[in-house]
């Protein structure tokens, strides 16, 4: 089954996710175009992270479809090892491999999964580490890095697979405030470079700055979607208004 719009990279259709009897995601549908930055926001426990985890198969889904490049990746025959090379994901808790140096962390995927040569992958890694300002840390171990540095390495590690889309799951939520900016700057830089992204975040100003489209989720449902200008200045629904009010002091 192919999609009509050639620009569509990722399509979520009527996705439903349950844990036991609890319905975590109800009938979620949206599309992500090539180069588009979609930011998913909503209260804690609304299902945002679960949604991202479903997109790269870390969670199974109960019904609905996820379509990447016009091909369903939820028909049960998916080779996730292949699909995940196209979908990069960065987690809240960075999750670098503590037994490897920075360089080994970012080379693992390209050399073992994609079977690229170490020489070529290293050149690419060095270039990417330079771009996030961490080339001099290439031989450091994760425990020697700050939270913000670890998260930037985690982003490079995901980028090394040359993914078509990047998923960011509250990547600044575990960071000290002074380190948030350095990570968000890297993501902004990626957006300017045309990377397709789905971002879950609690940083509202960042969302406003980076998003092409905002998706507001509450209670496992999409309550509202819109451009950041619309959403942040004139939210259509009461639930979105209430949610946004939590971030302002009067």
């Amino acid at each position: 089954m192919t999609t009509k719009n050639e620009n569509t990279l990722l399509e979520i259709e009527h996705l439903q996710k349950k844990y036991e009897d609890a319905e975590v995601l109800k009938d979620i549908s949206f599309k992500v175009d090539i180069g588009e930055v979609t930011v998913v926001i909503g209260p804690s426990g609304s299902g945002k992270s679960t949604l991202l985890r479903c997109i790269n198969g870390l969670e199974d889904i109960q019904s609905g479809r996820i379509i990447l490049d016009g091909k369903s990746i939820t028909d049960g025959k998916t080779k996730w090892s292949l699909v995940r090379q196209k979908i990069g994901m960065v987690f809240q808790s960075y999750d670098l491999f503590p037994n490897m140096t920075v360089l080994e962390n970012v080379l693992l995927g390209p050399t073992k999964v994609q079977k690229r040569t170490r020489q070529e992958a290293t050149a690419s890694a060095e270039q990417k580490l330079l771009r996030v300002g961490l080339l001099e840390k290439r031989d450091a171990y994760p425990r020697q890095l700050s939270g913000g540095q670890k998260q930037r390495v985690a982003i490079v590690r995901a980028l090394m697979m040359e993914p078509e889309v990047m998923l960011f799951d509250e990547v600044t939520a575990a960071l000290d405030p002074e380190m948030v900016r350095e990570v968000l700057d890297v993501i902004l830089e990626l957006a300017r470079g045309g990377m397709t992204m789905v971002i879950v975040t609690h940083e509202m100003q960042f969302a406003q700055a980076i998003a092409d489209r905002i998706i507001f989720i509450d209670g496992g449902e999409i309550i509202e979607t819109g451009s950041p200008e619309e959403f942040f200045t004139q939210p259509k629904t009461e639930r979105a208004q209430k949610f946004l009010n939590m971030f302002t002091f009067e």
Partner: protein
Amino acid sequence: MQDLGIKVLFEGSNFARLLSGLWVTLEISLASVAFSLVLGVLLGMVMTLRNPITKVLTKIFLEFNRLMPQLVSLFLVYFGLTTAFGIDLSGQTSAIIVFSLWGTAEMGDLVRSALISIPKHQYDSSAALGLTKLQAYSYVIIPQTLRRLTPPAINLTTRMIKTTSLVVLIGVVEVLKVGQQIIEANRYTAPDAALWIYGVIFFLYFIVCYPISKLAGRLEKQWRN
């Protein structure tokens, strides 16, 4: 009088006999440790399965081997099997069987706890990179498990070496037994030999175990993250 006891040690081939006794101790220990490491890793992996049957069975095996005093197990295998089933095992073989079972249980539990101590996120982020299960285990999970496992496994090894002294009681002539023989043989000429001989045996155990336990401490420090 003071130095009479130590003289006994150098009479005839006494010291060489002690050393050969020590070698018997080490043979039993090393064989048991080797079996325990290999079987314990397998047991530990089985123990992390979610299957309720393997859970119960491994739990019973673990508790049985832990709660049963090693001496009772030795008697059970050495005397019990012979009289009940006519299986004639040498003391040394019985000892290796008993210590391997005990070591496997202990090691299994160490492996299990090392495996479950790896955060779930490590599995997730390996998967998210496109690593297959096998690749994730080879490059990410097992190397981290080994680091957590090595210090306690080394401690278990020293515990097993020390516990082998029990095999005296099923007639295996190891270092302690040789010591007793030397003391007995010199009862009249050197009545205070016991202090010296047992002192030397203590020292021999120390020489064997200390470097091993030192190694554990060092690895622990080096791998702390």
